[in-house]
């Protein structure tokens, strides 16, 4: 029986309170990293990672390396990329060993939530499982979507029938269906969840942890469901959920894309996705990007170690590009950020605010984003998110 030590959530700052949309520089992996980092903020250790989503950016090649690097985890960890919705995330949680980070991510109605299991904390146990087929909406391997278009059939012969079959007669919270449909199914106070897919059941768990609610939590996807019983114990919850704002208008040229050099991609990957500089043992200076150097007498130095860079900094200079740039949406703002206390300045794009609204001296944090898609390859790196707020949480310290 797993225990949950901490929960982290993330919502993109774009869209409406009913439905968030990812920014141009966000995908399921950057969302997962934001939620995962929030869950890990309280310092738990991780041995396994399970990523549940139906919106994985890559189905050939793997998302695991970027996910681990973005989370700052060891590349030797096992990562399971699991296709599924709200029930799949609860299944993953129910069977998780301690020190497993389970992350659910959604793009259509965007959001991500992560839960870290441990030896103690908020106790959960599997209560029900039903797999039934009622494929009212399908997406095949090439991404083609078919919608049957009968919500009443889905409701009556789908999840209502499954709930009856599973003998889950009084769930406290129901995840995976729209708010209007979920409310009458739950016996507890209605919890407005921001997503309906893989992340929704962890958003529900976060709400229960915050309110110290116990009882059955059910995750639904079409006619399948999974239920867990949330028992005693406490878990810290950290939410990165800024208030939603409309996605700013932008323009993009119809033609043109940014080519990639995968040789350069591979060389830069560790430093670029883990946000690390190079440091030689005989020097206090950090090299960013990391690279070979020479001594004053010309001796070659190759033995640098990777050092984590600070994820906060101050804008040193900024510009906003308005002219159309093939392959990118304009306008966008670029800044050179002076990172805190390390004497390193980095050139990055600005995220999470409308273009042209940052100024020299503004503070902010560095966050993993999809910088570009180049020749079909999502190219990840860091972006500057102005502001220091953005996280609300009930820490373990408060709960204890």
């Amino acid at each position, binding site marked *: 029986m797993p225990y949950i030590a901490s929960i982290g959530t993330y919502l993109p700052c774009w869209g409406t309170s009913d439905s968030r949309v990812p920014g141009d520089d966000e995908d399921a992996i950057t969302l997962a990293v934001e939620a995962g980092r929030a869950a890990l903020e309280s310092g738990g250790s991780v041995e396994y990672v399970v990523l549940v989503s139906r919106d994985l950016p890559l189905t050939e090649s793997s998302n695991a390396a970027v996910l681990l690097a973005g989370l700052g985890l060891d590349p030797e960890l096992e990562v399971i990329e699991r296709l599924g919705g709200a029930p799949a995330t609860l299944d993953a949680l129910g069977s998780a060993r301690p020190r497993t980070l389970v992350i659910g991510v959604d793009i259509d109605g965007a959001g991500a939530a992560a839960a870290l299991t441990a030896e103690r904390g908020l106790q959960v146990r599997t209560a029900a499982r039903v797999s039934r087929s009622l494929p009212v909406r399908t997406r095949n391997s090439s991404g083609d979507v078919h919608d049957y278009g009968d919500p009443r059939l889905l409701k009556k012969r789908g999840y209502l029938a499954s709930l009856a079959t599973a003998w889950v007669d009084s769930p406290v919270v129901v995840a995976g269906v729209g708010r209007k449909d979920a409310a009458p199914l739950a016996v507890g106070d209605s919890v407005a969840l921001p997503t309906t897919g893989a992340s929704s059941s962890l958003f529900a768990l976060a709400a229960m942890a915050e309110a110290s609610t116990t009882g059955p939590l059910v995750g639904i996807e079409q006619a399948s469901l999974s239920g867990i019983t949330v028992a005693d114990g406490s878990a810290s919850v950290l939410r990165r959920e800024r208030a939603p704002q409309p996605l700013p208008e932008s323009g993009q040229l119809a033609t043109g894309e940014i080519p990639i050099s995968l040789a350069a991609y591979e060389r830069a990957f560790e430093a670029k996705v883990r946000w690390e500089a190079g440091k030689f043992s005989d020097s206090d200076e950090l090299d960013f990007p990391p690279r070979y150097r020479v001594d004053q007498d010309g001796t070659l130095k190759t033995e640098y170690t990777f050092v984590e860079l600070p994820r906060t900094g101050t804008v040193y*200079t900024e510009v906003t590009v308005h002219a159309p740039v093939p392959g990118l949406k304009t306008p966008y703002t*670029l800044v050179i950020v002076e990172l805190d206390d390390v004497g390193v300045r980095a050139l990055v794009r600005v995220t999470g605010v409308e273009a042209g609204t940052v100024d020299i001296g503004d503070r902010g944090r560095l966050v993993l984003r999809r910088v570009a898609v180049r020749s079909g390859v999502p190219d990840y790196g860091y972006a500057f998110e102005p502001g220091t707020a953005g996280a609300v949480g009930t820490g373990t310290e408060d709960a204890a």
Partner: protein
Amino acid sequence: MRNVAIVGAGMTPFAEHFALGIRDLLPMAFSECAASIDKGLDLSDLQAAWFGSMGTTDGFPSGILADTLGLRDIPVTRVENSCATGHDAIRNAMFGIASGAYDVALVVGADKLRETASKGMLWEWEAMSRDMAWDYPLGLAQAGFALHVRRYLHESPATREHMAMVAVKNHHNAMSNPKACRRFELTVEEALTADTVVTPSGSTTAHRRAMVLLRWSLSPRTWSTGSPIVRSGYVEVASVSIPLCISTSAT
């Protein structure tokens, strides 16, 4: 070190030159340079050549210069130093002559951007001038200099109006140069209200949104080719304008 003088110069107009290849433009510029020399020139007078070139239009630049001018038996050296490429080529030729290694040297600068479609030109140019993993995907494009200007405006008493005055001066100079590419007068007001390419947003004195734009004059146009000749003699200081300008996007 010996003194060095520029004894002749010639250039093609600054233009897109769709109809002319780099192998046409190089002889055109050289011919005008040769014609400008008081006592004329014989190709066999040339003992070395330096060729400032950012890109490699139609092949390795040194070979192209040697081939187009028939300079098969002298050393031809390509120089690249970003926007200072032309200056650096002159400097190298000057050292060659001042040291006594050569008496007469040719310096040429040429690039041709419009050999590729405008839609692909930006990334092609960026690929040549950016780190492929770190800077390239950010779309630095025209913003490279603007980042500097934005900080300069922050640290110095200079204002957007001062930046606009540089553009006004540049355009004024173009009026008396039949080979300049943007030959029209510009007022400070026009420069400040022109279409925005890249914003250095907000001046240091007032938080208005800046409308001035900064762009490389490189952008959609061909660099011209210029070919001064360097010969030993007395010192002459020549100022060559580097094509970094503040201008409107109007043509």
